[in-house]
């Protein structure tokens, strides 16, 4: 056995597969099985690179310098050379040094190359030894299932066995073809597993050697496709008997398709397919049908693009496409516009060759006119202009519904122009469509068709709803639940924040041991304010220090945390009776009578409310406070009570304004809302300058909590939030729930709020824009709201390219649909006052269209400088057309 083992090891180290097979073939199954444990633990000798020995560079004789005549010599100064030579001897010595350096350099370069070759040879030898070891292991394994398991074993079970195609002949010699075929089946079955790279090249070599058919499983075919095939893939495929079997997988299977268009395979497969088609090895029809099938099945853009590219390269003629008419019509609804464009162009070509049947034309019209790409819709409308409309009316109706007013109008133009040629049945079909049409189009077509235009659907007038009441206080179980959500998901819900603070205090004051039992398991390991306050609630002092390394803590964050920290400090030894600032409504307003009652109780029982809690309660007082409460407050004597009474008596409004901050290295120029709290508590102030406030922060704080800090002073909170909206207008995520809070809050309108809404309307994230539209709807329902400021900001910011105007259109359109017509008109008209005189601007046409839809009856175009001139321009540009629509909605002075 020892001799045999030494022999096997020697042959593994020789990396001689034939010789190894020779040894193994002489063994019976038992002997091979006996070898296996030793082989499993065996590591072939690690070959080290052969040391490279080069003779040292020999000194050369000094060069002969000319002794007569002139000669020129250039010095290459080197740091080693010292001062330049001054005589012939010096020059000779200098040249000698230079040559020596050159020889040394050449010598080390040669040495490096030889060393590299030696390292490469050693590496190859090591790989071959590993392959030989793997071959021995595989050959000695009892069953094929065992081999498959070994070849796919995880890293944790041992180093992977590196089988290569070269070991296949030896293996078959040892174990026979039948065994090889069984192994090939097992390997092919595992080839698609994603958890681990499988030795596909070995599997493929084995399958071919045993004469197994091509792979069936998509995963195995994907591996076949992804394998590199040397220089010419096309010539390899042309000769490969498997290729015909694999071909349909390229189009039908997602995994194989993905493998054939990504990575290295993605660069060689499509050209190879084209080459094979050109050479006639592959039927053009098969590739054309396959590509069309893949485009219909769909997938990522990157997956479909190569197939579309192949199709375009093959440039199928109309005779080849005739059979695919219906598939092309189906592709017109494809998500990718390039696919739809190709299908459309092909169908047009087919129609030119021989007219398409009416059913197909209707389908083409339906599919094309429901596309969003203006170019495609316009192209089809232009084509329809040359076709009889009688049979395609069902499709044309889709165009009348197009959400882009310009395209709906163009469809209506076509219908209007061709109306006299239509039969009565067709007119009836159009008439039936009128009631469901959009206002302007219906108004236009109804008289022409002798129908009655539908009355605009009644839109419920906007009503400001009173804010909902806070949910009832939490019992111990519910507190644990909410606290668990707050600790795990972050503190971003103002209602939960307040309920938890209140619940912790209640838990402390009722049964502390019961609270400890429930809350103890919830306290997380990380240090922080919340673990501290929960620990405090169960009577444990757990010091908390605000992190030092965070340089800027926003005043509002400090304010929120200050109140929590104050509660944490008091909960351990001196819990207050109740929190003054716990709101009565979800907006954040407190009940003044409750605050008064608590202050009276505190005076009577001799306890003091927390300072931060009182400040927060004062900031949360509603704007209207009952006279009885005001009177009763004047009788309060404690410092807290006097502060409360003083506040009720005086009241204050913050002062806000907007400052321009010029371009700075970290950000573009922008507008920043500034705040002076005036008589409001100083905690609301932000002492930083406008450029400091404008500087984007690494992380956006939890803005959602802020509106409930001062629900009666919306301007003050808007001024704090607005700088974050500026820095997130094109990147990042500010969240959107603060907009709900701002809209629900109270207080006069001002520049900070206008600027906040304007930036939110133009945010790059659609949910934020939609939330801004929702906020505008809620604000529009309030009698004291004026959107003109928002419009002026939108216009000003868009005119200076600080926001993308196009983005603001959709949320405004949603607000218009919700009935906030007046507010939308205020925004649009104020923005147009700035933008129209400045000339064309991306998105302006859409805004003008929107304004036309929102214009109230009494508006006059004189309020919109530049509109009359724009509407009077010749041509049918989108902006001009939109301006004409707006001019019709707001009468021109000459027409009025």
């Amino acid at each position, binding site marked *: 056995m020892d001799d045999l083992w030494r022999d096997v090891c020697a042959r593994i180290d020789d990396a001689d597969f034939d010789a190894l097979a020779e040894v193994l073939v002489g063994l019976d199954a038992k002997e091979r099985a006996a070898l296996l444990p030793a082989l499993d633990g065996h590591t072939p000798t690690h070959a080290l690179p052969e040391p490279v020995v080069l003779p040292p560079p020999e000194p050369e004789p000094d060069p002969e310098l000319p002794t007569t005549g002139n000669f020129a010599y250039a010095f290459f100064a080197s740091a080693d050379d010292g001062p330049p030579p001054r005589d012939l001897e010096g020059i000779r010595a200098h040249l000698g040094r230079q040559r020596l350096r050159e020889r040394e350099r050449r010598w080390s370069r040669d040495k490096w190359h030889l060393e590299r070759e030696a390292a490469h040879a050693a590496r190859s030898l090591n790989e071959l030894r590993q392959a030989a070891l793997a071959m021995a292991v595989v050959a000695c394994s009892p069953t094929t299932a065992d081999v498959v398991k070994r070849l796919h074993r995880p890293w944790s079970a041992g180093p992977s066995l590196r089988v290569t195609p070269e070991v296949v002949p030896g293996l078959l010699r040892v174990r026979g073809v039948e065994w090889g075929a069984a192994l090939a089946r097992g390997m092919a079955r595992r080839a698609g*597993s994603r958890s681990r790279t499988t030795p596909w090249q070995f599997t493929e070599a084995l399958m071919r050697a045993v004469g197994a058919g091509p792979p069936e499983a998509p995963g195995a075919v994907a591996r076949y496709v992804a394998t590199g095939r040397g220089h010419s893939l096309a010539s390899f495929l042309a000769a490969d008997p498997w290729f015909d079997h694999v071909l349909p997988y390229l*189009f*039908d299977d997602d*995994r194989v398709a993905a493998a054939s268009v990504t990575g290295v395979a993605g660069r060689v497969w499509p050209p190879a397919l084209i080459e094979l088609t050109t050479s006639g090895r592959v039927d053009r029809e098969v590739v054309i049908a396959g590509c*069309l*099938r893949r485009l*219909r*099945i*769909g997938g990522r853009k990157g997956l479909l693009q190569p197939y579309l590219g192949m199709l375009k390269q093959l440039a199928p003629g109309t005779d080849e496409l005739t059979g*695919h*008419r*219906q*598939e092309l*019509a*189906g592709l017109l*609804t494809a*998500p990718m516009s390039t696919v739809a464009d190709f299908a459309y162009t092909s169908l047009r070509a087919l129609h030119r060759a021989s007219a398409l*049947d009416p*059913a*197909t034309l*209707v*389908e083409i019209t*339906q*599919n094309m006119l*429901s596309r969003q790409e203006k170019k495609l819709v316009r192209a089809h409308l232009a084509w329809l202009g040359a076709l009889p409309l009688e049979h395609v009316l069902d499709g044309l*109706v*889709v165009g*009348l*519904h*197009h*959400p882009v007013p310009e395209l709906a109008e163009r469809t209506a133009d076509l219908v209007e122009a061709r109306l006299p040629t239509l039969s009565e049945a067709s007119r009836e079909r159009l008439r039936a469509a009128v009631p*469901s049409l959009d206002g302007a189009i219906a108004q236009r077509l109804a008289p022409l068709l002798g129908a009655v235009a*539908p009355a*605009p*659907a*009644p*839109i419920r007038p906007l009503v400001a709803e009173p804010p909902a009441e806070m949910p009832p206080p939490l*019992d*111990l*179980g*519910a507190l*644990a*639940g909410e*606290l*668990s*959500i707050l600790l*795990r*998901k972050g503190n971003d819900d103002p209602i939960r924040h307040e309920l938890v603070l209140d619940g912790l205090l209640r838990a402390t004051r009722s049964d502390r041991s*019961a609270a400890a039992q*429930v809350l103890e*398991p919830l306290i997380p390991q990380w240090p922080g304010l919340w673990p501290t306050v929960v620990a405090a609630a169960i009577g444990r002092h757990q010091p908390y220090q605000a992190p030092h390394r965070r340089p800027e803590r926003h005043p509002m964050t400090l304010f929120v945390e200050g109140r929590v920290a104050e509660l944490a400090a008091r909960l351990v030894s001196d819990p207050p009776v109740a929190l003054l600032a716990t709101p009565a409504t979800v907006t954040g307003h407190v009940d003044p009578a409750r605050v008064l009652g608590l202050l009276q109780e505190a005076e009577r029982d001799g306890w003091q409310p927390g300072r931060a809690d009182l400040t927060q309660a004062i900031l949360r007082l509603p704007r209207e406070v009952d006279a009885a409460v005001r009177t009763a407050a004047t009788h309060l004597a404690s410092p807290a009570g006097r502060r409360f009474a003083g506040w009720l008596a005086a009241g204050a409004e913050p002062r806000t304004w907007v400052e321009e901050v010029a371009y700075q290295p970290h950000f573009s120029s922008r507008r920043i809302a500034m705040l002076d709290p005036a008589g409001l508590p100083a905690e609301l102030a932000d002492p930083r300058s406008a450029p400091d406030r404008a500087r984007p922060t690494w992380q956006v704080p939890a803005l959602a909590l802020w509106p409930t800090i001062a629900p009666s002073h919306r301007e003050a909170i808007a001024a704090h939030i607005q700088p974050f909206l500026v820095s997130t207008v094109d990147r990042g995520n500010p969240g*959107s729930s603060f907009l709900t809070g701002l809209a629900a809050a109270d207080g006069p309108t001002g520049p900070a709020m206008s600027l906040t809404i304007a930036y939110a309307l133009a945010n790059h994230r*659609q*949910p934020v824009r*939609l939330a801004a*539209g*929702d906020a505008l709807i809620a604000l529009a329902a309030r009698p004291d709201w004026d959107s003109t400021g928002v419009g002026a900001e939108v216009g000003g910011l868009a005119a200076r390219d600080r926001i993308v105007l196009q983005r603001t259109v959709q949320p405004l359109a*949603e607000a218009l*649909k*919700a009935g906030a017509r007046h507010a939308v008109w205020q925004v649009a008209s104020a923005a147009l006052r700035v933008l129209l005189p400045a000339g064309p601007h991306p998105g302006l046409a859409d805004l003008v269209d929107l304004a036309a839809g929102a214009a109230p009856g009494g508006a006059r175009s004189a309020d919109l400088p530049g509109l009359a001139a724009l509407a009077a321009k010749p041509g049918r540009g989108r902006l001009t057309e939109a301006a004409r629509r707006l001019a019709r909605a707001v009468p021109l002075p000459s027409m009025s």
Partner: protein
Amino acid sequence: MSATAQAVDTRIYRHASGLFDGNLTLAASAPDQVDERTFYAGFVRTPRVVAGGLLALADIAGADFRQNRSTTRGRDPVVTGDGERLRFEALSTCGGLYGRLDLTAAELSDAAVGRGTTNVDINPPLYESLTRVGGADPLRMSVGEDELAVSTLDGKVVEKRVPLPARWLRGLAEVAVHTLPMDPRLEIPAGPAVALLAEVSARSGRQARWVVPAGSGWRSTTRPVSGAVCVADGFRLAVLRPLLPLAQAVTLYAPPVSGAPAQVSGWVLDFGTARFTLLLSTAVTHGFAGDGQLLADLGSGSADADADADALNALLTIDPVIDRASVAAHTGWDAARAASALAALATAGQVGYDVAEASSFHRPLPYRADLVAALHPRLAAARLLSTAGGVVPTAAGFAVTSGESTYLVHRRGDGYACTCAWWAEHQGRRGPCKHVVAAIIIGQTGQRGG
């Protein structure tokens, strides 16, 4: 669960489905054998709709919208005949999209429709042939055994062996429960519906948004206001795009707005003689299977509900389509009892729900009954917890010990909530967590014991 995860489901079709010379032949299979029933053999009225609907189903069955796509392929659609209609159902590979094509009697007036449920084979060549069906081409469709099909197709048997789709089966069961409380919210003609679909299925639509009726149309909002329909990860709706131009009207269905950040929505495309129903889950990563809406009922495991379900099942075998009113009329049960019996049947994969007709239909899934009844993993874990003695009633609720952690299961509104990470993540929107189910089991047995 490991026993069921290893189970293999074998489908044997006498031949591959195909479409030759206007003959659409859909091969049918029962578990482990060829299904020898004939469900339908005759012409269809609107070939384009039938072909388009089947293509959309194939698209849904193969769709996987998740980032980490699974290697398992989509399942063959399930077809149910009730003597009048044919219903083809499919669930996407990711489990978050459900599609059903209902062909009504008006579409199939040509011949008799059989009763029962079977799987039909869909393959790439059939897919390609279906894309070639035009509006003007007559189409004869056969589902199941058909003499004509035998004469035109080669008789090569198709066998598909795949792991038993426990997730897929649970998903189909959850779908029926999700649709039960749905109401129509918004009905729009096909023209504007194209615009709506384009708006909500844009690639940027990777969020939940809400669509509310406004004027004659709709508007989008970020708030779950009353009457709104949630569209979560709406880009998945792109599978409807090829169908939409064929539809006459689109109706959106939604359950009552609960205040959750996302809800399931139903989209019904009406083609006159046929309907296509699509159900959209609450997110790409939320398959219907994991919704666990049935868990609380399952956990309670009341013997009465099981008996009711058996009675209702017997009723359904006679009359395959029933609405809740007719259940009440036949059995004399009140609405709650009928609903819970229907839910129990849905869980067992015995009924589906047609939201457009507000009626349940008998659909015994063609899978081995013992495998269908396999435990929900969360329920299995909960049973383990409850038997291990880790559930202790306390004053604040139930203290549930799982591994090294202890969680508190407490009352929240009408139901229960938990302090575990899973609950914090989903807050009950995907059904109760295993701790809650364990507490329910203990609560029930405790009550019974007392």
